């Protein structure tokens, strides 16, 4: 129960960070924070219900988050190379 509230608060902080921050890498950090909050909710549900499925889904979320960070950083590097900036406000065109 308490863990669910903690996870909700962490998710909110991450959402605010995605909206407020301008640097793409900090936006990434905030996305990671939100993913962690959902992981905490999964693990605490798994603990409440006494089976392991929530923990396994949390594990899968971590794998997907790792893949997402790799591809995202590659995209940020590509944007940085073409625009010399890592601010999300400069990447406002959806074409190359």
């Amino acid at each position, binding site marked *: *129960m*308490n*863990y669910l*509230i*903690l996870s*909700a*608060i*962490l998710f*909110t*902080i*991450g*959402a*605010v*960070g995605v*909206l*407020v*921050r*301008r640097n793409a*890498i*900090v936006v*990434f*950090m*905030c996305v*990671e*924070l939100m993913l*962690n909050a959902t*992981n*905490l909710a999964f*693990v*605490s549900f*798994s*603990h*409440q219900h*006494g089976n*392991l*499925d929530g*923990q396994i889904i*949390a*594990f*899968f979320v*971590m*794998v*997907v*988050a*790792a*893949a*997402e*960070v*790799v*591809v995202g*950083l*590659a*995209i*940020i*590097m*590509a944007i*940085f190379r073409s625009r010399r900036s*890592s601010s*999300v*406000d400069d990447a406002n065109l959806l074409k190359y």
Partner: protein
Amino acid sequence: MTTLDVVFVLLGVVAVGAAVLVVTTRQLVHAALWLVVSFGALAGGYLMLTAEFVAWVQVLIYVGAVVVLLLFGIMLTRAPIGRSADLDSGNRWAALAVALATAGVLVTVLVRGFRTAYAPLDVAGQGAAKPLGESVFRIWVLPFEVLSVLLLAALVGAIVLSRREI
């Protein structure tokens, strides 16, 4: 308050405080380092929830790999290392509204939906690697294989994206 409650409050305060600092700090590298603190507190929370394996995977993947990758990203994009004023974008009020709405909805739903749920603590060794591995390779083996293909695709995609001649 039992000992578990006290430990939970300590871990929660550390996790939320570090997360707030990630969002509000003016220095990029400090944001990454506060992220380490927040993830570490969350790993402690997983341990408290008897999810040992998830806790150690959290330490290995997030604290070990993801934050290092983010620090590499900060260095490679030649971000300003010191204090920089233009880190915040302009939509501060929209963010405030979204924050209040999200917090309200999430806390209300969770409290109303799971008020009567309880957490038994006498399930020893439930989150250890052995039962988790058995479950992964018996019940969840198809998602596991799909995720391995996804990791391969992410690897190839990252290499293709970061080549110079695109």
